[in-house]
């Protein structure tokens, strides 16, 4: 367990990541040429750090209950190897005869990209979720015994989440400017039955640069 914690710290410590010499970096984001002027370096760096990415993926609650997630990912801070990320997602999934859920959330995370094109990232998120009963009509029984149909307007909930993932820039092997990722996550629905409900989900998909050629 201690080893695992130490590994996580090493992987995600921004300080360590920033300490990487950009001249030795050979990842998907090319290192700034050390011979360029400081001015040019700043411009290049700014261009990279403000890059926007579109995310699109499969969102499977308990892996098998299918859904989609779409979003925008923004990197307000980072260098070639380390990125601090901020993003907005919208998504949803259907768990037949249980619930249909749609959500919108903000996520904050960090990503470290290795020379090979592999990257690891993690996110925490907070969002709004709307939960509908799925698979059947809803009835109420009035005190006089009458049965009435209730509209399925759903329930509002908050949606905290944590995710850890990995991915790969397939541009290195295919020339197509796409990154693939797989990101298991835990998310919660609250309030649910007076408390909260924990869910496991698999989020897997693509990232592509909005400003790539």
């Amino acid at each position, binding site marked *: 367990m201690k080893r695992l914690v130490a590994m996580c710290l090493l992987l995600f410590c921004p300080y360590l990541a920033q300490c990487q010499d950009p001249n030795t970096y050979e990842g998907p984001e090319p290192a700034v040429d050390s011979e360029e002027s400081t001015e040019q370096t700043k411009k290049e760096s700014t261009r990279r750090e403000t890059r926007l990415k579109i995310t699109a993926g*499969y969102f499977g609650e*308990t892996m098998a209950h299918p859904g989609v997630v779409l979003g925008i990912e923004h990197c307000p801070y980072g260098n070639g190897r380390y990125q601090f990320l901020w993003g907005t997602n919208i998504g949803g999934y259907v*768990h037949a005869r*249980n619930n249909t859920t749609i959500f919108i959330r903000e996520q904050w995370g960090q990503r470290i990209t290795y020379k090979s094109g592999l990257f690891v990232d993690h996110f925490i998120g907070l969002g709004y979720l709307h939960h509908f009963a799925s698979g059947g009509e809803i009835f109420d029984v009035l005190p006089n015994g009458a*049965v009435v149909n209730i509209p399925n307007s759903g329930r509002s909930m908050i949606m905290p989440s944590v995710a850890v993932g990995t991915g790969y820039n397939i541009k290195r092997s295919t020339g197509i*400017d796409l990154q693939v990722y797989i990101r298991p996550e835990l998310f919660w629905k609250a309030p649910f*039955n007076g*408390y*909260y409900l924990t869910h496991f989900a698999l989020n897997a998909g693509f990232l592509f640069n909005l400003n790539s050629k």
Partner: protein
Amino acid sequence: MKNRIYYLGVFLTLPFLACNKKALQKEGDFFYLESKGAVMPVWVKGNKDAKKFIIMLHGGPEGGSSQYYTVFPSHQRIEERFAIVYWDQRMCGMSQGNPSMDNATLEQFTEDLDKVVTLINKKFEKPEIFLMGHSWGGALGTNYLLRNQHKISGWIEVDGGHNWTEANSQSRDTMIAYAHKKIDANEDKQYWNFALNWYAEHPVVGINENAHYTFVGKAKGYDFNPDSDSLKVPFTELLFYSPLSTAYFFVPYKFEFLNKGLNLQSMLGEITVPSLICWGRHDKVFPVSIGIDTYQKLGTPSDHKYIHLFELSSHSPNYEQPIEFANQVIEFVNKY
């Protein structure tokens, strides 16, 4: 760019391919009952043409779900003859909504059950309705019959908890006797000495005393033959291809109201509907003496009440001896 769009298209198609519903997600009639903040699934499966509907009252209440019972061979056998109504009670199983814990009372559960009965009568044109209560469901069913037995054609109690307070006391005594027996036989002495010390410190066993229930499990008081084929649960199918969700596994609340005491034994004489009492001989949660006493105290005329003790079962003969159990239930329901 074309390539990227192609890859995205392929990937976004996957969720729709995954939408292929499995049997557990499409069989029978499925709907919800909303009551005081709870949205409770009701799933009607089996032979509806017989016009005999058995409402399943699941165990728990903490961690219980009727939908879990659908996978057991006994229920599948019964469904060939009659319809079974799988209703998940408030704050249990796949029940949804945000009801208040203040409403987690026997009275509220009983009111919800009455709404289920009304709903079934309305949707299925007044079939014969039977109740089948397992464990905690035995308490709920008994309490319901004390108020509404005129709406019910028959009662099947399976190791029921209608005398929760006395059952817990007897369960504690049974486990102490079992621990002494094991120590005398020089089997797991350390473990059973630990159990005896625990019981010495706990003169009353509450619903949330996990240690007690662990000892009961170790003594095969839940499952007489834990390795039995009939107890095998298709976890993969349930987890990935059924209505069951993580709600079944993560229950953060406790039904403390049961610790205030529950004993309906003295009122059983008021119940006069045809009844079948099914009990596992080796039950150490609700010992078999409770079942026998229940049969004797029921107010039902003796030619309309039955008891069947399952010799190779503990707390759940419906799982442990599925064919014998199903036969008993089918024979009983056929009579009424």
